[in-house]
């Protein structure tokens, strides 16, 4: 019973905001993240460049730092990302990577989260000797 009531409230909440505004918010954060991450030397961002072709997810690698190492380091700063092959092994082979790290943005994220992600990535780079600590 409480589940159904909660679901109805969640649907009302999302309908009040509207899917277009949610998509716009996600895409804006993803675009900001791509711009920030691309400025870190050694980071490669995957996927289409056009903002309209993207969802709110940003897949990336950082030099030879394995994505699982990236995920562990970011986790220590309270940043939860997905790392691995994302059930897309053929795509990973095509991209010639073992795995990627992937940050996802949604309604509850803000530009401060993009800042936190970029900052924690620089910390990962420092641990692996990419940038001076």
């Amino acid at each position, binding site marked *: 019973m409480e589940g159904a009531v909660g679901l109805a409230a969640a649907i009302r909440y999302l309908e009040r905001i509207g899917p277009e505004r949610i998509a716009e918010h996600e895409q804006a954060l993803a675009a900001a993240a791509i711009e*920030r991450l691309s*400025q*870190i030397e050694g980071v490669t961002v995957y996927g289409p460049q056009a903002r309209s072709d993207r969802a709110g997810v940003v897949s990336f690698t950082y030099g030879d730092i394995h994505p*699982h190492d990236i995920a*562990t380091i970011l986790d220590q700063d309270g940043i939860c990302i997905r790392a*691995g092959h994302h059930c897309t092994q053929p795509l990973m082979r095509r991209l010639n990577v073992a795995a990627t790290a992937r940050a996802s943005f949604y309604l509850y994220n803000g530009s401060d989260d993009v800042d936190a992600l970029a900052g924690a990535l*620089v*910390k990962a780079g420092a641990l*692996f000797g990419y940038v001076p*600590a």
Partner: protein
Amino acid sequence: MDTSPPEPPPLPPPQLSALYQELILDHYRRPRNKGTLEQATHAVSLNNPLCGDEIDLQLRVDGDIIKEARFIGRGCSISQAAASMMTQLVKDKSIPQALALADRMSAMMQGDEGAARDKTLGELRALAGVSKFPVRIKCALLPWNALTDAVKA
């Protein structure tokens, strides 16, 4: 929005620097005994399907003694460094000695401080910090599981 590159951070928290020691990164980037053996007597391929880490381990065993160990692997720094260190450590050890080391390694991953001080584990003690990161323990044990499978097969 400020788009300048982020400032370099202060020193990483002690936990992370304990996990990613220089020695571990050195083995990750310059793995020892990487490759295949011409006259392998034992071989095992093992992978962790959840994270994608892989290891092909080959041994040349003479009598009871592991004369040589080599590996080919793909994965995170922890799994690759553990494999590299292990192939060095088990060289010229007997199979029972190698299995005892696998037990010590496993104990160290479960937080056994005695094991973490056990000199017989050699450079592998640099991996003691992994025990504080439960999801990464399987990374450090992957090569040891391969070794155990290989000699018990």
